[in-house]
Structure formats: C-alpha cells, structure tokens
C-alpha cells in the first residue's frame, strides 16, 4: 500500500464543521484513482492530508492517521513525505517561482540534493527541452503544468496528485496531459486525480466520491462514470445529455464586427468580421491563446479598437461611454478572483448598481437567485473558487444587461452549479437577451447554442 488512511477526521482551526469525517482509504501502488465530488466537499483537504501540509502547515483538529509509504504524516516532516508524493495544485501558477523553466526544475534538484543529470532526463521525458530558457509565466497553461510535473518528478515520487488540472486547459492540452498521466501510470506511478471533469477521469481504475467530508462511494467499476444515478451524488455522468436545441437565428442585427485587427508584439486578431443578431446565443471556441478573450474584450471597450470597426445597436463603439457600454454589456471574466474587490457579498453586487446609476430593486432578487442571501454580509474572499464564481456572476447580472459575455463560466463550477447556470442562461435567453460564451466545453451549451464561432490563429470561422 502506498497510502493508508485510518479513521481520518479534520477540522480547520475555528471551523464549525469538520472538513473530513472518518475517512478510511487504502490505495495500492500503480492505481489510477479519481476523487470526485461537489465544490467544498473536502477533496482538496484530503489531498493536503496526503502531502503532510495538514497537519504541519494548517492548524486544526486531526484525528486518525495517514501513512504514505509507511510514513506517518504527523511524525514526519513535509520534506520527508514529499519525496514520496508530489502534488499539482489547483492554482498551479503559485508553484512557479523563477523566471526560467530550467531554473524551476534546478530549484527542486538543489532542494533535494539530487544529481544535476536528472535535469536532462526529466526535460526529455516531459518534452520540455525546447522550453528550458523560457519564462514559465509566458507558457501555455498545459506547458506550465508540465513544468511543475517535471519539477515534481525530479524526486521520483511514487504518488502524483493533481487537483483540478483541467480547469484552464483546452481540449488538445487536456488530452496531452492525460497521455502523460497514463504514461506515468503505466510506469508504476500512483495517480490521484481530483476533478469535476468526468470525461478526463474516464481512464481511472478506481473512483471515490466525497460528499460533506465523507467517502460515500468507492468503486473499481470501470463503467461507474456512465451510470445515470451518479448525478444524485453530484457527479456529472460521462455521457450526460445537456439537451438539444432548435437553432434560431435573428435578422435583427445587434453587433457588427468588421475587419477587426489587434496586435501586441504579434498579431492576435487578423481582420475579423462577424455579425451577431439580437437574442442569439453564440458560442466561441478555440485553443488557449487563439484570441477569443481579446475579441470579446473589444465589445465592452476593455480593449481599444486598433483597426476595424464595431457597431452595437447601430452605433459605433467609439460613441459609447464606458458606463453606457457596461450598462448594455455584462462581462464575466474567466477567473473570479479578479472580479471580486469589495468587502462583503452585498457590497460587491451593489458596486455594479452604484457605478451604473441603477436603483437597488434587483439586489435582493439577485442574492436570492444565486443563493447568496444568507451570506450577504460575509467577505466574498472567504468563499471557495466555485462559490466566488457565483458571486462574480451575480455581481454582473444584477444590472440585467441586454448582452451578456461569459468567458469560461463553468471552469470552477461543480455539476449542480453547472446545471443551475445553464437553466439561468436558458431563462435569460428566453427573455430575449443576447449571450456570448467562450468555452472549451461546447457540450454544456448544446441546448442553447444558435451559432458557433471558431477562432484559430487570429481568424474567425463559423461552424
């Protein structure tokens, strides 16, 4: 056994409820385990217990024990445990410290006093050789993850834990990462995958479901993810039908984009032209870095038009003030962390109403709609990322804009929250609003999408 967990319960210091309750788990060498469950159920806490971060870093009440390759995490230092277990954290950018890829890997080598020959071996295995002199923060999301995995593999740990690794990846990068994990697993590594993405977990040999801090399902049934009843556990079945939609197009033009080009050091958008009708649901697809976000940022004046023209409701975008455009177009960013900047949930939502000069009629309705009423006085920073996403959505949608742009809104949401968002989008679409969504997951929006735009290499095409 590489991992043995006996009667593990843990409560964070000052928390009213335990994050983990009586967890018993034994994982054999070479297993490929998926840990599934809704937001805030305790998945990441369990991973932190497996690395010794709990109890050495986070204080709280810990009962039971965790053994990693026979080492008790309570009795051993974190440094002794992590030579056996490596973790790719959900916010993996915080694991990068140096402005060069080779320095990142060398840092790990120096920290563990390992031979520097390992550098070449690892970079070859992880296909990082051409990137060694690049700045990690300038790499694609998939490449950043590969740099961290390479650093972790320097110590040749038996166990590799990945916490929500697919959240920022496009479909190609996801499949590439999956290939790496399967390769490592085939070479004897134990892989533990914490994810909402059941399609990504399809090759796992074992599935654990956690709810409210308890393991409620532990199965080696390969067909587990296809069973419809897992939706009752808050897990998205692999072939879940997000519905079909009768496509409707509108002749009533709302947004016209003509020959839009944008350049920062290199051309990002190249002569893009598109028309979007009133009440349409547009899905924008494309790889990471293809220019999707750059395009939509032009629509609400977050980026200035360099070349080309944008007309909204018959008026050139340059004739709108920032306030007018914000009233007309609601924009929800990919990362909720950067959309939250006030001291309470209510204040966060009120900010939009105040800056747009709107009355507060919608405030309570929005708090209720997004299940935030009981948290209205709490700091928005105290929530999980998935919950912050909900607050970000509420803070933009409270002004009921005519056009809504959402950049990867599902990224941090669990199955229930995703279904809730789809239902909400359906309701606002039926009320005649125009919706533009950027996503790597077109299936979620099958029941809503009227047209799909694909952006590749700065050019647009319609599917």
């Amino acid at each position, binding site marked *: 056994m590489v991992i043995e967990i006996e009667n593990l319960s843990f409560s964070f210091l000052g928390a009213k409820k335990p994050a983990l309750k009586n967890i018993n788990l034994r994982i054999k060498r070479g297993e490929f385990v998926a840990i599934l469950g809704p937001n805030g159920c305790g998945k990441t806490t369990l991973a932190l217990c497996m690395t010794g971060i709990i109890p050495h870093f986070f204080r709280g009440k810990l009962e039971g024990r965790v053994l990693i390759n026979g080492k008790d995490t309570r009795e051993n230092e974190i440094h002794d445990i992590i030579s056996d277990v490596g973790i790719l954290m959900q916010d993996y950018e915080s694991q990068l*410290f140096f402005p060069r890829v080779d*320095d990142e890997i060398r840092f790990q080598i*120096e920290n563990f006093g390992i031979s520097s020959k390992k550098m070449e071996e690892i970079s070859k295995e992880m296909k990082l050789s051409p990137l060694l002199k690049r700045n990690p923060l300038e790499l694609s999301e998939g490449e950043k993850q590969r740099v961290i995995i390479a650093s972790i593999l320097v110590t040749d740990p038996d166990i590799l834990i990945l916490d929500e690794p697919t959240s920022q990846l496009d479909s190609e990068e996801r499949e590439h990462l999956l290939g790496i994990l399967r390769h490592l697993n085939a070479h004897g590594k134990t892989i533990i995958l914490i994810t909402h993405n059941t399609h990504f977990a399809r090759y796992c040999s074992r599935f654990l479901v956690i709810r409210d801090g308890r393991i409620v399902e532990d199965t080696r049934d390969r067909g587990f993810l296809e069973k419809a009843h897992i939706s009752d556990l808050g897990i998205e079945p692999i072939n879940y039908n997000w519905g079909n939609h009768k496509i409707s197009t509108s002749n009533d033009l709302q947004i016209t984009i003509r020959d839009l080009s944008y350049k920062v050091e290199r051309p990002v958008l190249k002569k893009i032209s598109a028309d979007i009708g009133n009440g349409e649901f547009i899905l924008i697809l494309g790889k990471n870095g293809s220019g999707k976000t750059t395009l939509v940022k032009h629509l609400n004046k977050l980026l200035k038009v360099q070349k080309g023209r944008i007309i909204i409701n018959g008026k050139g975008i340059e004739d709108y003030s920032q306030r007018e455009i914000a009233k007309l177009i609601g924009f929800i*960013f990919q990362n909720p962390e950067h959309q939250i900047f006030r001291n309470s949930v209510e204040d966060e939502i009120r900010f939009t109403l105040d800056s747009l000069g709107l009355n507060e009629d919608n405030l309570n309705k929005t708090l209720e709609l997004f299940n935030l009423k009981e948290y209205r006085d709490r700091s928005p920073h105290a929530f999980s990322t998935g919950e912050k996403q909900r607050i970000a959505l509420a803070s933009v949608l409270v002004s009921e804009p005519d056009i809504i742009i959402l950049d990867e809104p599902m990224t941090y949401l669990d199955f229930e929250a995703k279904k809730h968002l789809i239902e909400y989008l359906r309701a606002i679409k039926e009320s005649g609003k125009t919706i533009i969504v950027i996503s790597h997951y077109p299936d979620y929006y099958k029941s809503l999408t009227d047209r799909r735009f694909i952006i590749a290499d700065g050019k647009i095409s319609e599917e």
Partner: protein
Amino acid sequence: MKNIFEYREGRGIFYSMDPLIKVFLMIAFWILTLYSELSFLVLLSVIIFIIVMYSGLTERFLRQTRFFFLFVFPFIVIFQVFFHWSFAGENPSLFFFNPRVSIDGLVIGIKIALRLFCLLSSSLIFIMTTSPLRLMQRISKFRIPASVTFLLIFINRSVALIFNDLERILEAQKARGFSIQDVGIRRRILGYIALLIPLLTISLERAQKQAIALELRGFGSKKGRYKN
C-alpha cells in the same frame, strides 16, 4: 507589466558575469553616485545607457523608466527651480512656499534627479540581468541563509504580481461601469484606497499558497544544498 521587473534570458557581458561581482559593482556604483557632482553623474548616466543598449535591454528599460522621465524627473527639477531657496540656509522651513526661480535650484534639481536615476537604474539592470537561482546558489556558499536571498526574490516577484492584480481589478471595475481613469482626482484617490484591502487579501492568499508550494518543492530540506 507582470514580468517587467523580472530577469529575462539575454546576451551580453552582464548576463554572463558572476552575480557576486555584479553585487559588488552595483554597490560601488551606488557609492560613486552618492558622492559625485553633476558632471560625473551625467557620465554615470551615459554609462548606464551604454550598458542598457549593449545588453539588449533598451525597450524594456525605456518602458520601466518612462514614468520616471515623464513625471518624477520633471517634478524634482521644477520643484528645485522654484523652491530650492526654501530649503537652503540654516533654518529651512518645510512649508514655507514662496516660489522664486533660481539657477542653483536648476543645477541641484538635475543633480538629485540624475542621482536617483543612477541608483534606480543600476538596481534595475542588476535585476534584469541576474538569474535569481544563480544568485541564490552563489550567496548560499557564503553561509548567508537561503531564506534571506529567497525573500528578496519573493519580494521582487510579488511587486510585479501585485501590479498585475491591480490591472485586472481595474479592468473588472471598468467592465462594471467604473473607470478609475475617467473620474476626478478625489474619487480616483478614494478608488485606489478602496483597492488596498482586496489587493492585500489577494496578496495574502497568494503568499499562503506560495508558502505551501515552497514546502511542497522541498525548500529548506535537510537533504538540499540551500541552508536556512
């Protein structure tokens, strides 16, 4: 903005130079700067520009020092031209503002501004051309705890990331109808003050994640080559 104050791969004598020699050179440069008169400060500034051009840093350097040349430099010179005499003499009064043009003030102003430029730009060149890891490796040989060097690296990186956070929050505010650039000076100041708490919160959250990440990277491990 994110990486503007960070080391980037490049070519030139300053990139290949031993980080410790660079530290000594930088300190020597600071001492020279502090004790030099106007003509020598002009010479030191020219030397800095030659180093910058020779190291291929011209574009980044100009971007980084743009604010200094557009606002700080003129402010210091103008202030000295009009108020130099307020601070001269035996009993200068800090709040005795009675503008009077003085040529001495012009010379003093240029001197102060150039001194500040030499101090800042020599530090910038050091940061931009020195790999933090190589610096840490060299310093750790002199029994200086690695945590001290790492703290400096951490601060440098954090400043860049805080600027990045600020940019993103301002963008989110703009998307919600409040553009800090378009409001009056009073609301602008209040707007920036209101951002202190979220910026601090984000920075503390990030610092905690990075502290965890550092533990997970084995920093300070007994087996390692860095000693704390």
